[in-house]
């Protein structure tokens, strides 16, 4: 083989992997990178999209967002909504997974529960929002039951009262999202060797000790992975909040996604909406990097 041919062959070998990757690289660039870069670009323009000759705005839109008290309220609501959702998704998911994995429950009942517990996952966000709006409306079933039980004295406007609205949407989201944890943890539980529990039984360990010293440590990789993913997804929840409260009453359920939507489609301030979207992107990116680092460390 001549040196020229050898060099040509080396080049081909070096290029080949990139050629194999090129279809997916092109698709990712078109579907992900291009829109992201475009939105980042918009956030530095005046009258982005709405004018054919937008001027450079510098950091103006970011400054406007950081100076807006509604943005900070949205950020706080997003954190509350997300943290509460993730914690309760995990707790409820764990309880139900343990229940479905238990030998003490009749297999037929277990199968029925398995179907029932996974139901919320089968509904779309719109259906979930409609269900909870009907249940929690002032004349709805929830108020009626609570009044009959004597827990509340008068009708509560769950979604319409600034005091209860954020808790109500968080509750609806908890109901909608726990099956992800339940299914993942159930799979993890079924993978824990029985020997561990048998050894613990011989040592005289109690149920809660087995849970703390065997089950939870064994499930920890799943718990952390799913929690991080759930955190990223829940931060971006939009339809459930939009349909139930529209970000109100007043600004009590305004989260980053509804805040951005209103900037774009109510105020037609697409530049500021782009800046807000970039801030959400940066927060999500931080969490994603954390997730990737965790995965690599494992």
């Amino acid at each position, binding site marked *: 083989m001549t040196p020229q041919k050898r060099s040509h062959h080396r080049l081909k070998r070096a290029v080949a992997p990139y050629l194999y990757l090129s279809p997916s690289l092109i698709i990712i660039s078109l579907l992900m990178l291009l829109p992201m870069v475009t939105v980042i670009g918009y956030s530095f323009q005046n009258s982005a*999209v*709405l*004018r*054919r000759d937008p001027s450079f705005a510098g950091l103006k839109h970011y400054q406007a967002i950081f100076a807006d008290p509604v943005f900070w309220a949205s950020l706080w609501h997003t954190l509350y909504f997300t943290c509460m959702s993730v914690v309760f998704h995990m707790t409820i998911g764990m309880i139900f997974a343990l229940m479905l994995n238990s030998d003490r429950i009749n297999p037929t009942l277990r199968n029925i529960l398995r179907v029932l517990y996974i139901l919320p996952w089968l509904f779309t966000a719109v259906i979930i929002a409609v269900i909870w*709006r009907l249940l929690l*409306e*002032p*004349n709805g079933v929830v108020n009626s039951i609570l009044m009959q039980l004597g827990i509340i004295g008068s*009708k509560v*406007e769950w*979604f*319409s*009262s*600034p005091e209860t*609205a954020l808790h109500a949407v968080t509750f609806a989201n908890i109901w909608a999202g726990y099956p992800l944890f339940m299914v993942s943890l159930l799979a993890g539980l079924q993978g824990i060797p029985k020997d561990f529990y048998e050894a613990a039984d011989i040592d005289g360990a109690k149920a809660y000790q087995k849970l703390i010293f065997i089950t939870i440590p064994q499930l920890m990789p799943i718990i952390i992975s799913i929690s991080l993913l759930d955190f990223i997804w829940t931060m971006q929840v939009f339809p459930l909040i*939009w*349909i*139930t*409260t*529209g*970000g*109100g*009453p*007043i*600004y009590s359920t305004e989260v980053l996604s509804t805040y951005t939507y*209103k900037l774009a*489609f*109510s*105020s*037609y301030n697409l530049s500021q909406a782009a800046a807000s979207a970039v801030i959400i992107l940066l927060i999500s990116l931080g969490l994603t990097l954390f997730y990737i680092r965790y995965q690599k460390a494992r």
Partner: protein
Amino acid sequence: MTFRIRPAVLKMAAAAWLLGATGAMADTTLEFTQWWEPELPAGSLRKIMDEFEAANPGIKVTLVSGPYATTRDQISVGAATGTLSDVVGLDGAWVNNLNAQNALADMNPMMDASGFDKAQVADIIKVDGKAVMFPVASFVYPVFVNLDLAAKAGVTKLPSTRAEFLEAAKKMTQADKNQYGWVLPLSLQTPSGVQNDMMSWVWASGQSMMADGKPALEAKPVVDMLTFVKSLNDAGTISPGIATKTEQEKVEEFVNDRVGMMIDSLAHVNLIRKRNPNLNFDLIPVPVVENYDGKRGLPYASWGIGISAGSKHQEEAWKLVQYLMSEKVNAKLVSLANAFPGNVNAKPDFVTSDKAFGKAFEIFKTGYLANEFTGLPVAEDLMTQFDVQAQKMLAGEQSPEEAAANAQKGWMAKF
């Protein structure tokens, strides 16, 4: 098996293709983007377009139809990128933004050149002196009254003034039976309740929320309206869940005998009858302030029409606009839509065949169309801002004067 195509057949096919292509080239094809087609009986708008094409040889119309929200986004993007359709369906709330983008053609020169009779149209929406939109069909918002609830509550005379309305609402309210006098939808998801259910009280009494082209929310008309709404709320006459209630839920509550009165679009009459055929209701104009006997402003939403400034076929587009605004065609279109006409001479057929529509038509003819949000910049955002302040007021966080002042501050930033 093999097929042989004879040269003669090929020649004929080529000739037919050429003929077709030449024919197509000779035609001007107008693109007409709107949200009306899905809301009209299937095929009816296309039929009107076919009749237009027959009356105007050489012009074809392609309908680009979609739901309202999609159309709004499509038009915004089209205006920005210069790809707006030749003819566009418009909502009055959009025209200011579109005009700021120089996306809409001024129809004044077209009207002058064609000798168009301006007196025949109900309204011409102008921004900066440019005629940018005609309301083709108007959906007015009278007060719907549940007559059975009113009779049971001892309301013998339907309210004509705000004070009478408050009294009637109090009488109709029986909270223990989930029955309320009035319903107010102020969901931030669709803040149109500010326009239809709140500002309508101002316009009904011939008043305005503007002064010299600027917001005047701190002036007496708006503060009085807020005070009145607050008094209805304080009296417990408004159905609960105001802050998240949507227009659709408002109608549902009325249909289910849970509220005695609501301000709503006439377009919902058939829906209400379908949902509850036994509901006994009547329509009245929005009540006015004491001692007012002038003409009543009638809130409305409209299907507007305009022409793209970038259209290469403005002459043909104007023909289509004229056609839709002409007496007979307009009457036909609004009859299909259960709306009131954009042409003052057009009389939709339902006003003679249906008592409720007939009565609403009388209200329409004795009053005037009023919607001050039409043509305002970022109208929906203004409604959202007012909505938030109204919600704070109803939650007891501020007085009507403070709500008006805070809304004024927010609005001024947008002007």
